[in-house]
């Protein structure tokens, strides 16, 4: 067993520097690497390029980095629900690249899988395709998209073992598994870190080979963005 575990978030982020490109898992506030984000705020790392499906809300998730103006460029598919983000974007302080969600997912997966680029129909005929190679396959037009290149990937999983094997819970899975191994260094934070032997190999969702560092996170808030309930009938 190759042990990937580190004792805390500070060691997990060793080597992080200004101007780096980061991949961050999560959909909305669901399955985001809360501990890694808090540590980036504490370390005052700036000029970051962040790739994540969303940009958090004003006072949580990536919104915390936006508040401190630590993000120079954001690559995302949807950025509603964040006033500070909108203000920085419209004022030109923040460089924003919006891309289709499936393309974002596949650009991460391609990086993980060593595929430099791929064709997708998403965005053909729109401003997303401007300046990109397009090609016809089976009578339909497609756009060439590149794999992401990133320095660090910050992943949140439910459970993990010292070998870096991961299990996710519910819809907190989202972009996390496909961002593992898609950056030079993948840091996984988990709610429960167990010794090897406590996760059945049949249950592993991401094999530890894609994870360089794993640690047990603390104080998860797991905020719900849109709490919605039905009433008993």
């Amino acid at each position: 067993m190759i042990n990937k575990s580190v004792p805390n978030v500070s060691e997990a982020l060793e080597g992080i520097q200004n101007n780096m490109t980061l991949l961050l898992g999560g959909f909305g506030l669901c399955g985001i690497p809360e501990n890694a984000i808090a540590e980036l705020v504490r370390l005052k790392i700036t000029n970051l390029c962040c790739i994540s499906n969303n940009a958090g809300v004003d006072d949580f998730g990536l919104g915390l980095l936006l508040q401190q103006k630590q993000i120079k460029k954001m690559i995302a598919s949807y950025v509603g629900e964040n006033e500070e983000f909108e203000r920085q974007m419209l004022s030109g302080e923040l460089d924003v690249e919006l891309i289709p969600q499936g393309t974002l997912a596949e650009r991460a997966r391609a990086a993980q899988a060593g595929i430099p680029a791929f064709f997708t129909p998403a965005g053909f005929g729109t401003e997303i395709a401007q300046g990109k190679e397009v090609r016809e396959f089976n009578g339909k037009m497609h756009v060439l998209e590149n794999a992401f290149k990133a320095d660090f990937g910050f992943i949140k999983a439910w459970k993990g073992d010292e070998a870096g094997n991961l299990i996710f819970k519910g819809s907190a899975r989202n972009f996390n598994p496909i961002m593992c191994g898609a950056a030079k260094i993948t840091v996984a934070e988990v709610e429960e870190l167990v010794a090897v032997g406590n996760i059945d190999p049949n249950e592993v969702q991401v094999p530890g080979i894609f994870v360089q560092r794993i640690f047990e996170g603390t104080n998860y808030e797991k905020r719900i963005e849109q709490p919605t309930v039905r009433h008993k009938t």
Partner: protein
Amino acid sequence: MPLDKNRIAQRIAQELKNGYFVNLGIGIPTLVANYIPKDINVEFQSENGVLGMGPFPLEGEEDADLINAGKQTITTLLGASFFDSSISFAMIRGKHIDLTVLGAMEVSQTGDIANWKIPGKMVKGMGGAMDLVASAENIIVAMMHTNRKGISKLLKKCTLPLTGVNCVKKIVTELAVLDIGPNGFILRETAPGVSIEEIIQATEGDLTLGEEIREMSF
């Protein structure tokens, strides 16, 4: 009388067929789930990684790890599954989803759709909409026929940045059900009490009358 949002959703629900896998967008499309005909089984996919989505949870049973694409808390039904975003869009791009319902700011008579950006004013992003419209073969747009100023949203050509081209096949508005054909919009159904003349007035794009125009029934 023009339909309200729930009625629009109810009319779209009549398009559901037994065995369909369905992706519903945010807004009016989400309401379609409230009107599934009793005698059929359909499964709802949420692009953040859920198939077999159920109703909202009861108070006290919300789970932060279980949300839909609108970030609302949800539940799952028997037979449900979770998966990553790449698998989710494999379902979408790979045409495994039978019906996609989404909202729009504008639709053109050639089936172009715009729904993610108003230059200089509002940029929320396309989310999964560009992937959905580029691949889905069965797309229904749920929208209001005109904007708040009374200007038609069914146009010869879209004015806003596009989400996809030549992809919309059917539109349900508060006034009408329309298909898109080789010569533009085709009127198929009118909302109860709405005249064909009103629909013509509210449609900027080329509109032809279907062979048999019926009044919507619920």
